[in-house]
């Protein structure tokens, strides 16, 4: 098998892993080596599904000894198998990196024989990159559940970020669908990485040349929609993971049926992309907006609203919090206003030190007022008064009703619901309602329902 073919198979097998970011570590170039890292991460390409390509994301091997129900690479699935050699992988990374195609490597693998053997091969590939090619770019490596802690440690000394995928959001689902993996095999390395990474940061603070262990921290990923957990369950788990293991990111991946299995959603199920999107929005609120999971969802409302982003949902539920005065409110309160994000909030706080802010000033600062205008005052004046229906109309997320031409083939110009449109829109369209009309019907209903709640 030639290298191009291997690359195709092993990229195709890795594509469902969503975490393709190169963020979390700032490292300038060094004389005598190749590469640098930018803390914010850099995307280098965007695939036709709109996802960022930042890293050479491949599996070391897809010849798996395990049989997880939700996975294309499961032992019992019939598909072409391939494995790299450590050197092939290193050369590929360097060739792509020099051409500015990628920020580095994201290496993961199926279980090739045993977890330990797989990890040893991955470590050898990274060793060649770091030591022989003096590669100073980004490396994200996924540990293999069940591998020896010493191997996890060696991997962490070569990689910038480590991840251990939690895969499914509950132990019950894991037992049911991934019988070869134990919860402890996932949480134990997570704990080890959290401890060693914190220790290494402490050492580095004292002694600059101390070896860095996963300086960009760790992340995890879970599959959404393969199993019955609610958004509330998922968000609570996410919050707990951030706290307990100091994770940098939790990624969600909308389940895409790849194999027929009676324990899983039917093959015709559409991936729940809108739900995934809402979970990411909620995740942002946890990380950058000082929200807690308990504020966003509760027993009575265990799932995120498909038609409203979670911050708007919170605002609708808490009219007593508003309006917020832009000239005096602390940053945390500004952040709760629909339409004001961390950047706008910071600019408001800076600009108001020099001048009073009215509506024209807010516009110049770049605050998007479509939603915010109903939730703020400037010098005590409300910039806009709207009827409940007008406000509700501004709050609804247009993405949930997105219709567009997708061009699945060259002669395809018919508008269709976009992949992340609400399930109700997809269903109506599938029943034969014209897409634009389907979107409008669903929107009207969502609007009526929202006005009633306000």
């Amino acid at each position, binding site marked *: 098998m030639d290298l*191009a073919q291997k690359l195709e198979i092993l990229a195709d097998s890795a594509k469902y892993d969503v975490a393709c970011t190169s963020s979390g570590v700032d490292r300038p170039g060094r004389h005598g080596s190749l590469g640098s890292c930018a803390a914010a991460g850099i995307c280098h390409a965007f695939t036709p599904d709109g996802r960022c*390509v930042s890293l050479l994301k491949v599996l070391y091997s897809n010849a798996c000894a395990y049989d997880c129900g939700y996975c294309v690479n499961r032992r019992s699935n019939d598909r072409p198998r391939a494995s790299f050699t450590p050197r092939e992988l290193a050369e590929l990374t360097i060739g792509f990196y020099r051409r500015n195609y990628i920020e580095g490597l994201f290496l993961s693998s199926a279980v090739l024989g045993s977890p330990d053997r797989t990890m040893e091969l991955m470590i050898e590939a990274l060793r060649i990159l770091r030591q022989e090619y003096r590669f100073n770019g980004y490396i994200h490596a996924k540990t293999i559940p069940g591998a020896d802690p010493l191997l996890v440690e060696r991997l962490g000394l070569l990689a910038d970020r480590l991840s251990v995928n939690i895969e499914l959001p509950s132990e019950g689902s894991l037992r049911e669908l991934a019988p070869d993996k134990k919860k402890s095999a996932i949480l134990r390395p997570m704990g080890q990485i959290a401890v060693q990474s914190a220790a290494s940061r402490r050492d580095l603070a004292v002694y600059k040349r101390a070896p860095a262990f996963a300086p960009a921290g760790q992340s995890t990923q879970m599959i959404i929609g393969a199993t019955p957990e609610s958004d509330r369950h998922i968000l609570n788990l996410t919050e707990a993971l951030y706290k307990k293991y100091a994770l940098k990111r939790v990624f969600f991946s909308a389940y895409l049926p790849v194999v027929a299995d009676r324990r899983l959603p039917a093959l015709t199920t559409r991936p729940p992309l809108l739900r995934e999107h809402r979970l990411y929005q909620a995740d942002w609120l946890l990380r950058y907006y000082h929200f807690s999971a308990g504020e966003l969802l509760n027993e009575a409302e265990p799932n995120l609203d498909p038609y409203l982003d979670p911050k708007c949902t919170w605002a609708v539920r808490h009219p007593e919090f508003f309006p917020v005065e832009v000239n005096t409110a602390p940053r945390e309160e500004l952040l709760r206003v629909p339409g004001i994000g961390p950047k706008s909030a910071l600019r408001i706080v800076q600009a108001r030190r020099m001048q009073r802010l009215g509506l024209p000033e807010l516009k110049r600062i770049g605050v998007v007022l479509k939603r915010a205008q109903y939730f703020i005052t400037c010098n005590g004046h409300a910039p806009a008064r709207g009827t409940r229906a007008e406000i509700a109309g501004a709050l609804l997320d247009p993405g949930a009703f997105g219709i567009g031409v997708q061009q699945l083939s060259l002669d395809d110009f018919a508008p269709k619901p976009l992949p992340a449109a609400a399930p109700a829109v997809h269903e109506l369209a599938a029943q034969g309602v014209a897409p634009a009309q389907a979107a409008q019907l669903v929107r009207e209903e969502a609007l009526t329902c929202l006005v009633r709640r306000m």
Partner: protein
Amino acid sequence: MPGQAHVTDTAYHYDGTFAGFLCCIFESYARREIPADVCPPQQAQLTLYGVRDIATDATRARRVAAGLGRLGPAVRDRIATGFLHSAAPGKDLALLRFARLAFARGPQAAQMLGDADAAEAFALERAVLGEAHHYIEFLRFEERGGMLGAVIHPKHCVLPLLRGHFCSRLPGEDFLIFDAVHGAALLRQNRRVQYLAMQRYEPAPDTEEADWQALWKRFFRALTIEERRNARAQQTHLPRRFWPDMCEMQPDAPGDGPKHT
């Protein structure tokens, strides 16, 4: 107060260089006036106002540069970077007015986004930085005989903003970035950087390079999840104007070998 100045109906014409622009700022203070327009040679014919030609004088330019330097990196970079903007008529005037605001109000002027001139200077800087960042993401090198080369078609003069990133990232490499729109190139050779005037860069075909590009394209195709296809999102993140210089966005040439589906 030195900021006292009246708005005139005279336009300043200068030579289009940054030093020349700094001399316009100098002139504006010397005459205690704010010009009606500030024009580089390309825009000069269009003006409706009376004209004053501003000579470029290195000593004056240095004095203004030193003054801007004292206002802190935020103000200085906003003006220097905003100046690389090459699409907005009136940008020179906006930057001059912002410079005056900064001299009057100090380093905080950078954060006075409620002010029209400060907001415009900010917008100019942001547009240029945004484009430079896009090229940090989307620029593609090709290798010829051990040397890397890339062609870009930017709206603004972004080469100076690419220099630091690529020199730091590729410390041991020689490379060339050719800005085909502005006819300039950034050349790094033997750890030295030069800017060259250059009209064309057409590397000869090379089979090894073609193989790398084919590998990359194959990887790129394999990554796409058809069920999630969303061409609109792709275009939002990667605007179409960047596509012509990116190998993976080109359709396959006829003899590119068999494709797997």
